């Protein structure tokens, strides 16, 4: 019954949940959406399909990391550097 990919999916969920703590709209907002995104695919059983979805999750992680970096970079630039003329 235990799917071999189960651990991988849970790990992905945990990593995303951790990332969501800093989400600009708040961690509660993020968690809600995260959960619904995972629940939407709860009936997927095809291992290939699950792998694809996990890969998409990994991509989302990269996107969120980039978002955080940009947000911080812009804040720093605004505070410490003259605006470009």
């Amino acid at each position, binding site marked *: 019954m235990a799917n071999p990919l189960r651990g991988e999916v849970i790990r992905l969920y945990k990593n995303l949940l*951790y*990332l969501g703590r800093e989400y600009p709209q708040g961690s509660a907002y993020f968690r809600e959406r995260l959960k619904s995104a995972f629940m939407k695919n709860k009936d997927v059983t095809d291992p290939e399909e699950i792998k694809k979805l996990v890969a998409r999750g990994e991509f989302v*992680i990269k996107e969120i*990391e980039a978002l955080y*970096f940009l*947000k911080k*970079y812009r804040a720093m*630039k605004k505070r*410490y*550097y003259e605006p470009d003329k």
Partner: protein
Amino acid sequence: MSGRVLVGVKRVIDYAVKIRVKPDNTGVVTDGVKHSMNPFCEIAVEEAVKLKEKKLIKEVVAVSCGPQQAQETIRTALAMGADRGIHVEVSGKDYDTLGPLQVSKIMAALAKKEDAQLVILGKQAIDDDCNQTGQMTAALLDWPQGTFASEVAIEGDKVKVVREIDGGLETIRIKTPAVVTADLRLNTPRYATLPNIMKAKKKKIVNMKPADLGVDLTSRLEQLRVDEPPQRQAGVKVETVADLVGKLKETGRI
């Protein structure tokens, strides 16, 4: 050549938090406020880790001075790829008066003790905005300094540093051991992910006191008061273009 790089990391109030000044003007509210690593220190850590990944150096040591919570900041640095941490415990009254001079004394003592080849620091912290620690560390050690680095390249026993200066860039070559301070455009710091934070728990953090390094923390500075920046003046609504032009003329804008 020890191949060891010392990176200073500072725990500051998170950049996204709205800063509130204490009602008695003695400082800012820090209790129950989210803290994180100073963004410029993140850039410094990233640069050191990158140098290690290119095998130009052997070890990255993250150093932080402060109370117990400073260990969380060191942990973040370890999760980003530093090899080990040194926590110089400073708490209570000493922490309140801990300034760039005191920290640079600690950094200088550690750089000697650890036989560091390079000390990389953030150019400034976003809480006190001093921009002095790197310069003073270099002075205390009598080492060359490459401040506001936007590019760092190790060339044998020399370091090429491209510096951000007013209106352009300056390229210098300095001898190691040296002190480098990171500017904003040096690199893009990686995110300390959950798995890496878990792995970082196995890395060692050595705890020490300033006295172990023979550093005296007395400060000669006295902070008089801390004030909020002036409030922005409310805007005015105008009805017509003529009104707008009139107002602009009034304020001397046109």
